[in-house]
């Protein structure tokens, strides 16, 4: 115990004495949290909207006015012909071209049926999908008005009842993407910082030659490893705390659940990451190598975590792979506890898998750390 104390003391001194490292540990992650949470959103706003109106009637103008009134669309211009519209799309001046055909109003009133053409720039497929949904919603709303308008005087009972869905968004009532992203990005920061720090720390001692000196002392492997990793565990928990405060103060993210559950889970989760970091450092000789390997895993973990893309839409083999992704569980738990108020029983599946993961990774790490070769 005393021996561990000496190592922990030394590590903290070295961390706090390293003027270049301190901002990397404490300032950059929080800046990232603030910037990314504002920037990483799936909402599509300020869509550059243009139209070709071949009808020039009150009905066609009413439809365009609907788009104009929407928050999502900026009506940029109208085009007299398709050719001009497509060259503008090619230049990237517009995202959406709505084409209203001739006899739009006449067909609508007489035949109760007409068609409009929508062209969407789909280079960013996800954005195009969202834009399509918005356009459909506006057209539908317009449709209803047209239907209701002329029919008002007649008997309402005779009207076919439209099936209306009333969406109810649970746990994130306002569909606020920040509420969704902040817990996730916090997870990334805690993971990246603890993984990089622990992965590089022991390699650094290898590089400067002090590890050999340590290996010549009678210190036990477990003492050395615990003493080495404990400071990074503390830093990880500290980052979580600061991140949660920022989430509350700046983003007003709801904290429905029990903070104790969140901390308990994170305490175990960080052990997984430290185990991975130590394992990496045992098999690398330079900080550069360790950095590259850590980066490789972080990128895969992040992209397959369900943070940016839903796991449900991945191919089956990829879904199986995500089972081995610790970040996936952390993201799930953070969102469950923060937004849904899940209790310990609810997160038990994630908790037990993470605990098992921690035991395996740290077992491997201690086993692969050799004082002699």
């Amino acid at each position, binding site marked *: 115990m005393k021996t561990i104390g000496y190592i922990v003391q*030394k590590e903290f001194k070295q961390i706090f004495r390293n003027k270049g490292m301190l901002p990397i540990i404490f300032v950059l992650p929080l800046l990232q949290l603030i910037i990314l949470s504002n920037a990483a959103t799936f909402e599509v706003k300020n869509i550059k909207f243009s139209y070709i109106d071949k009808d020039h009637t009150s009905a066609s103008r009413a439809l365009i006015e609907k788009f104009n009134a929407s928050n999502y669309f900026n009506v940029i211009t109208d085009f007299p012909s398709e050719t001009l519209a497509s060259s503008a799309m090619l230049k990237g001046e517009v995202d959406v071209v709505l084409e209203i055909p001739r006899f739009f109003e006449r067909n609508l009133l007489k035949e109760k049926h007409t068609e409009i053409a929508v062209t969407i720039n789909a280079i960013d497929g996800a954005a195009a999908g969202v834009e399509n949904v918005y356009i459909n919603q506006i057209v539908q709303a317009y449709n209803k008005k047209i239907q209701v308008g002329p029919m008002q005087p007649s008997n309402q009972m005779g009207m076919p009842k439209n099936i209306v869905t009333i969406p109810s968004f649970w746990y994130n009532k306002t569909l606020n993407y920040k509420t969704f992203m902040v817990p996730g990005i916090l997870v990334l920061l805690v993971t990246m910082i603890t993984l990089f720090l622990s992965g590089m720390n022991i390699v650094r001692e290898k590089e400067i030659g*002090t590890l050999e*000196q340590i290996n010549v*002392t009678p210190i036990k492997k477990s003492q050395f490893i615990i003493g080495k990793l404990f400071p990074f565990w503390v830093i990880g928990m500290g980052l979580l705390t600061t991140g949660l405060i920022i989430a509350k103060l700046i983003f007003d993210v709801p904290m429905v659940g029990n903070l104790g559950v969140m901390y308990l889970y994170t305490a175990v989760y960080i052990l997984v990451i430290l185990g991975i970091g130590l394992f990496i450092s045992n098999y690398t000789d330079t900080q550069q190598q360790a950095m590259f390997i850590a980066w490789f895993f972080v990128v895969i973990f992040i992209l397959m975590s369900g943070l940016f893309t839903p796991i449900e839409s991945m191919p089956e083999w990829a879904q199986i792979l995500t089972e081995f992704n610790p970040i996936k569980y952390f993201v799930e738990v953070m969102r469950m506890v923060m937004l849904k108020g899940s209790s310990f029983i609810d997160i038990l599946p994630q908790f037990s898998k993470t605990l098992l993961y921690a035991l395996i990774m740290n077992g491997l790490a201690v086993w692969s750390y050799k*004082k*002699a070769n």
Partner: protein
Amino acid sequence: MKKENVIQAKNLTKKFGDFTAVDAITFEVGQGEIFGFLGANGAGKTTAMKMLIGISIPTSGAAEVANFDVFTQAEEIKKNIGYMSQKFALYDDLTVKENITFYGGIYGLSRERIKEKRCQLVEELGLQEVVDELVSSLPLGWKQKLAFSVALLHEPKIIFLDEPTGGVDPITRRQFWEMIYKTANDGTTVFVTTHYMDEAEYCDRVSIMVNGKIEALDTPKKLKEQFEAETMNDVFLKLARSPSPALPKGKGEINSNLNEYELKKSSPLGR
């Protein structure tokens, strides 16, 4: 005057794949002896030393250090030895005081003992002024003396020094050897590798490794007689130049030997 042996190696061998770095070396070192472990670069000195201090597992053979077996009792050996590596291995970003406290702590010394040792060490080395300075700010010579003293903190039976005076000025080198003598007088065995042949003359006994084998082992005086040489430098050159199957003799090697000769001549320690 026959003293107890603290290091015994028998046919100690280390192979890395097909390459035999240390080839069945056999020797003994007595208590309180200053044992010089010589050899050209790449002769296998450091590898042999690493096996004795328990951070490299021998391929075959047997060895005991401080009466503990290198295969099964490496951790026991580590309690009884001190080691100073070629690379400076104190923490540059800790102060003199913090380095002493850290190493004392991991060797299991009590707080009072660490404090007592620290005061004694700082006074002996005359480091009072810089005790709270970062080690990185010290000149190399001071660093080496500090590293040597830190390796002796836990009062080991044997101290292993791997080229302790590399890159150090002649005055510091002399002071360093005074420290080595003092340590040996206190009963600690000193196992030292060096490239300076004048330093070899100061050792009680010297072994010379060539291509993983010990080719000569005796007191400097007897070695000079045996090889009919004036100085240890000549003994070394004769041995290192002898034809060997493993390494082709090229001009480069002879030149490097000559460089060492020049170095020795220009050193004020040379006789």
